[in-house]
């Protein structure tokens, strides 16, 4: 039987392999670099041999059980609430004008680096923060900042709030991307015509399909929430901190002997995340079982009021929008503030002093940050476009295994393998300069670039390629002259997403450069403990601006290039 000629992949099969190597190579090396020192390998003294001393050191650290508990508690609670808020918001409001407005407000928040958002929240809710100033003294009676531990509270409530504010928009936009594939309207009409209440119909028929589409993003959120350092450093408790911050402190300690217990702690972090995802997965099963039972009973719940759930979803989303936007505004005000006494709502004078003091340095660091972001994104873009074009040439899509590899860098806690990568790099004397940092950024940028581009790339009408081919265009010609130019807008969006991801990276930059490459994110976080709000205001504003302008460019450039090509603007 003859096979058609289109299945000839040529050298295109290599690109997916290179991509897998780029993603998995450093992760595998990092895990190895964590595993060995945790069990007595790679000791500085040159000795070797199996040893449990690192574990003993780690477990005898005072407060470590509390740290572990904090990581699990803040991670699970924030993920559960963010997911619930996202689901209730979509169930109750999808298709309304309120929802459209919220979507428009929340989308840009997604690009905002976690560090900037966390610092913004701190600016809002601290005892001397903007919220307290706006309410004092007329509502609170406070003439001076109250002596309350709101930010970095020992229970981790501020940390949970910060994580919810940042992850709710993420889950929401992932869901919105998935909804069109589900055919919500049809399912709802069928169910309602059979007498099911609106919320119930949604929960029984839409949610299972939707959750199936956002399961991996949910795991990514859960893993991040349990193991992040950037939000936890700003908003999380300090004595003791979460496990991940503990590990970071050990990894950056001048005493190199602490690297080994840090490795043991990193493995613990990995096991915690793995176990929690497993338990979460069992929870999904339990829900599915309950749902099936209820489907089998046929209960309609036609009279169920859904106002409470609608209100909850809406308040949570509004909370996310208000805190992050309010935080941004107060950072802007602080960066221009002269004298600003408590409890005045605004500074009594404005000036450019903070900008002239920190602006030049911020500009230098911006150039490094952007160089890194552009380089990492371009590498990722070439690999992703190569993988997607390889799908076309070879006639087969990325399978389930490929998707899992793609999501691995997003689900695997950074703190579990980056310390190992640093230990390895130190071992080989390679923990310096731009290259290790660049590679570590590519690992995290690439999955997002792929997720952003795969849909539009695959949705491109293949008949256009057929027409061009029948007119003598080669497959390369189709790619360069038709497919890529027509995909300009999604490519630029993917680039903007990639750059925002790179700009927001904290741990990879810190770990793979040994602290010697400064980016806007590392600088902003370094300032966070100092409490100089004017300096933090300048740095976080520059940080957020740089995460945002690529999105503005991605909106404007296609409008300029295709100003006479309406088919591509509203097509």
């Amino acid at each position: 039987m003859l096979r058609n000629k289109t299945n000839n992949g040529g050298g295109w099969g290599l690109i997916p392999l290179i991509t897998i190597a780029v993603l998995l190579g450093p992760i595998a090396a990092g895990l190895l670099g964590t595993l060995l020192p945790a069990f007595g390998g790679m000791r500085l003294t040159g000795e070797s041999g199996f040893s449990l001393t690192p574990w003993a050191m780690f477990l005898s650290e005072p407060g470590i059980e509390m740290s572990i508990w904090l990581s699990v508690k803040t991670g699970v609670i924030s993920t559960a609430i963010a997911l619930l808020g996202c689901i209730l918001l979509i169930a109750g409001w999808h298709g309304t004008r309120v929802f459209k407005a919220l979507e428009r407000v929340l989308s840009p928040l997604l690009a905002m680096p976690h560090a900037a958002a966390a610092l913004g929240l701190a600016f809002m809710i601290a005892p001397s923060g903007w919220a307290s100033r706006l309410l004092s003294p007329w509502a609170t009676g406070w003439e001076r900042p109250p002596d309350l531990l709101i930010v970095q509270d020992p229970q981790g409530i501020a940390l949970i709030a910060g994580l919810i504010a940042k992850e709710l928009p993420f889950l929401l936009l992932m869901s919105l991307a998935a909804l069109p594939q589900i055919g919500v309207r049809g399912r709802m009409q069928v169910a309602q015509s059979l007498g099911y209440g609106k919320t119930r119909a949604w929960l029984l028929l839409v949610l299972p399909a939707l959750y199936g589409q956002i399961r991996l993003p949910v795991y990514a959120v859960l893993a991040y929430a349990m193991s992040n350092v950037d939000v936890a450093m700003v908003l999380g408790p300090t004595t003791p901190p979460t496990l991940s911050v503990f590990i970071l402190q050990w990894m950056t300690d001048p005493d190199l002997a602490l690297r080994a217990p840090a490795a043991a702690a990193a493995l613990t972090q990995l096991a915690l995340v793995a176990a929690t995802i497993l338990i979460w997965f069992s929870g999904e099963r339990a829900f599915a079982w309950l749902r099936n039972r209820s489907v089998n009973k046929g209960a309609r719940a036609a009279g169920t009021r859904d106002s409470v759930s609608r209100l909850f979803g809406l308040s949570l989303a509004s909370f996310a929008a208000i805190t992050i936007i309010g935080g941004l505004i107060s950072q802007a005000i602080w960066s221009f503030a002269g004298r600003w006494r408590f409890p005045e709502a605004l500074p009594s004078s404005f000036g450019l002093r903070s900008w002239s003091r920190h602006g030049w340095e911020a500009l230098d660091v911006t150039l490094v940050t952007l160089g890194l972001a552009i380089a990492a994104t371009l590498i990722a873009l070439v690999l992703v476009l190569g993988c997607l074009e390889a799908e076309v040439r070879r006639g087969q899509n990325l399978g389930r295994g490929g998707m899992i590899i793609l999501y691995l860098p997003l689900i695997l806690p950074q703190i579990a393998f980056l310390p190992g990568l640093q230990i390895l790099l130190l071992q080989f004397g390679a923990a310096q300069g731009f290259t290790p940092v660049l590679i570590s950024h590519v690992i995290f940028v690439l999955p997002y670039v792929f997720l952003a581009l795969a849909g539009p790339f695959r949705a491109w009408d293949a008949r256009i390629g057929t027409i061009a081919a029948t007119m003598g265009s080669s497959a390369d010609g189709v790619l360069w002259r038709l497919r890529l130019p027509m995909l300009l807008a999604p490519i630029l969006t993917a680039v903007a997403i990639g750059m925002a991801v790179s700009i927001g990276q904290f741990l990879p930059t810190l770990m793979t450069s040994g602290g010697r490459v400064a980016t806007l994110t590392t600088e902003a976080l370094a300032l966070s403990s100092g409490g100089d709000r004017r300096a933090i205001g300048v740095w976080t504003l520059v940080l957020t601006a740089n995460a945002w302008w690529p999105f503005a460019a991605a909106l404007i450039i296609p409008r300029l290039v295709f100003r006479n090509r309406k088919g591509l603007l509203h097509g």
Partner: protein
Amino acid sequence: MAETGLCLDNLQIHHRDGRLLAAVNTQVAPGTVVSLMGPSGVGKSTILSAITGALAPEFTCSGVITLNGRKLNELAPQKRRVGILFQDHLLFPHLSVGQNIGFGLPPGVDDRATKIDAALYEIGLEGFTNRDPDTLSGGQRARVALMRMLLAEPEAILLDEPFSRLDATLRDRMRKLVFDRARAANLPVLMVTHDKADADAAGGEVIELTLSD
């Protein structure tokens, strides 16, 4: 078997799992039209994609496809010299009307700008060179797509319901234009259609495909 024209010698399209999707055995002489008709899902368009070389990976084809004596089966799509028109005229949206026409002109043709203008003049679209294809009417798009295809100098023409999106009066004119041009160039035409009127207007052999299960 004749050396000229498009021959589908026992062409069979199979699903990957071996099930037969469609089979056709015919020969389209130069200057004539053969119409493929049948219900949706019978594999009419898939037969066309086997001829252009754009068969989706979930299908395989057997049999021999020859065009003017050249065997097409193993040729890359861009070497087959088979033009195709779809019901959505699929102008390239990022190129101007003139660039769309120019895409069809083979490389190495000189004085491209004059040829493009002449081609637009022929289809009554003089001065449309720099226009955005999105601003064209359905009939205008159909004519640009036709001209773009003809300029690539195909040796056979495939039509995948190219008239179904046009309203009735336009449809008659467009049919006449396409069939006249094909006849003038002495090209074999294989047309997939739902519309009996298309087949009647074409005047050639009609092949009814039926669902194979």
